[in-house]
């Protein structure tokens, strides 16, 4: 396990590169999901107001 994380001395470089990639990709997926929920709520609200 240590050997795997150590990566022959390049662990710091490799894991920071993979870590930053993971963060950016996660954000790319999470932001549209949040946006979708927001949109649904706003349109629901809009339709409710119409009925009043």
């Amino acid at each position, binding site marked *: 396990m240590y050997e795997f994380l150590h990566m*022959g001395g*390049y662990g710091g*470089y490799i894991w920071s590169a993979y870590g930053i990639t993971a963060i950016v990709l996660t954000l790319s997926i999470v932001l549209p999901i949040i946006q979708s929920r927001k949109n649904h709520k706003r349109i*629901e609200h809009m339709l409710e107001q119409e009925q009043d």
Partner: protein
Amino acid sequence: MYRWFHQLGSPPTFYKWSGQWLPWLTFVCITLFVVGLYGGLVYAPADYLQKDSFRIIYVHVPAAWMSMFVYVVMAFSGAIALIWHIKLSEIMMLSSASIGASFTFIALITGSIWGKPTWGTWWEWGDARLLSELLLLFLYIGIIGLYSAIEDKRKAAEAVSILALVGIVNIPIIHYSVIFLNTLHQGPTVSKFDSPSIETSMLIPLLIMALAFKLFYIIVLLMRSRNELLWRERRSQWVRNIIKGTGNV
């Protein structure tokens, strides 16, 4: 064929169809990421020259490929939006910009991290590959900024399409910079099909990761396009049906 295309371009059909495909695409994409990461980090042997540091290739190269691929898709969608005024292609162009910027950012950062142990420097201002990729990031940011800066969204989409089309000259510059110009960046490893200068056990994980990144782009593109479409069509009957949960799209 034309009819199929035409139907797919209609907002409710696109919304329904993309909603059905998203779970499957996500499943395949996650599987590819798991297999590709295992292949790249565990299965592939260390490089004889760069040792383990070469493993950064498995995120750097797919991200760099996608940074260019997304740009080309974006510029073509922009051209289609300009010529035929197809709403969906305008939406696809706009949805591509932010994910393209993300891929470019990943390519630049991971390249910089890879550069330190390999070239001894994080960044080199005289390097054509690095500069043209940085320019690509500025193009994406410029496109996002320009669209949000112009009030009239129809004019904004037109302006953005034109900027995207002009900026496409940068793509061949990025691609050929390592061949014709003097750079620190190493030459292409994979695209020399007759004799790729990479071991098969190293190449296969790279291709799997590239496919995973491509699917990731399609997933994000569909998700963003669906959001934009739903919002733009919020006054139409099909959106009402979806929001009210009556199902019939």
